[in-house]
């Protein structure tokens, strides 16, 4: 019988170790604001959390299941469980860490219910193993998913390359380096408001390129 994750999400004590997956504290604060709103009954705030973390959760679940075709179903189940349990989220950890645990447990339950051997999470989280798992996962991807993912990646990269230098620098420092607006402002020697505007304009330019692909 499948075990539901405990409401505090503390199923195995493992957290994402990839620094890229660790949100900056500003993002954590923003997530916490959204969580508090969900706890007060604002469903729309949860939709934003789903939008923010859908790709990471689907990617994580696909990696664990070794079957990308059912990754979205299991990821959806994880989000539904998270919504039901969000009343118990106290903010002791980052929201994504909590969500990550629920997703791992949901994937594990799916594996158990189908009597397949789940991946070893510790091994999965180590850097060397991760690349192996990702490679396996890519082999299992459907051709359509691979093609779409590749096209998205190329479109985003092209759009970033075409940006004026100040916008390109701002978006790279934010998205790849994970710097806060204040840190970017210091690095680029400009006001924080300018950073905010540059990042927004960069995203708008990327969005204009992505929109026809995704509509």
């Amino acid at each position: 019988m499948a075990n539901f994750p405990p409401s505090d999400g503390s199923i195995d004590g493992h957290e994402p170790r990839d620094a890229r997956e660790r949100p900056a504290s500003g993002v954590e604060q923003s997530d916490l604001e959204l969580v508090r709103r969900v706890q007060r009954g604002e469903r729309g705030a949860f939709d934003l959390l789903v939008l923010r973390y859908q790709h990471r959760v689907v990617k994580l679940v696909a990696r664990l299941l070794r079957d990308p075709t059912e990754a979205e179903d299991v990821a959806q189940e994880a989000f539904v469980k998270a919504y039901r349990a969000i009343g118990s989220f106290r903010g002791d950890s980052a929201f994504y860490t909590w969500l990550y645990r629920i997703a791992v447990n949901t994937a594990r339950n799916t594996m158990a219910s189908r009597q397949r051997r789940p991946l070893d999470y510790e091994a999965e989280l180590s850097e060397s193993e991760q690349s192996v798992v990702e490679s396996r996962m890519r082999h299992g991807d459907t051709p359509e998913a691979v093609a779409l993912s590749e096209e998205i990646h190329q479109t985003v990269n092209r759009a970033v390359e075409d940006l004026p230098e100040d916008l390109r620098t701002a978006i790279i420092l934010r998205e790849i380096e994970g710097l806060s607006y204040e840190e970017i402002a210091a690095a680029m020697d400009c006001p924080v408001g300018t950073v905010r505007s540059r990042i927004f304009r960069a995203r708008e330019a990327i969005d204009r390129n992505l929109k026809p692909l995704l509509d």
Partner: protein
Amino acid sequence: MTDQIREQISALLDGELASGEISLLVRRMERDAELRRAFGNYVLAGESLRAPGGLTASPGFAARVSAALEADGAAVTTPPVTGRHAPRRWLRPLAGAAVAAGAALAAILFVPGGGEGGGQLAESTAVPPAMIVASLPPGGASPTPAQNQRMAGYLVAHGQYASAIGRRNAWSNALAADPGITRVALEIVERP
């Protein structure tokens, strides 16, 4: 849709939007699919830059989750608060018990005064109810049957000897503390 709102969305994604601006923006986004789409694409662009390749959620994924929550009627559940700030379990009013308590209170208020049993109870429970409540186990533990018995005994005796206002006050305090006290009190009243 103005650029100003979309810029707020971009700042929200980065955790750089002022707390006071979030609520209004979330409400706008709840009503506006285009704003949600923009937010989703901003996220996707960032993910693609950080971790190229591999699977991403399909374009309709977030909408499907939202529909599943809607169809499922999933509700946010709030577990009981624990720890030192938790309200005492036995202080929590229960609807059913409250109704029963109300009925029992009315019955007891009209119990004729005097009687041998009442006198004995009054003698044996000369401790004020506030002191009894204070002696109850701390930290969310339920009162013991013996404590319930003492409190109920006091209240029944009080109901027989005190004025109507006094009776009401004593019972309101006791019921607020533990609706279940009524059951014990009724047992005492009905005792032969």
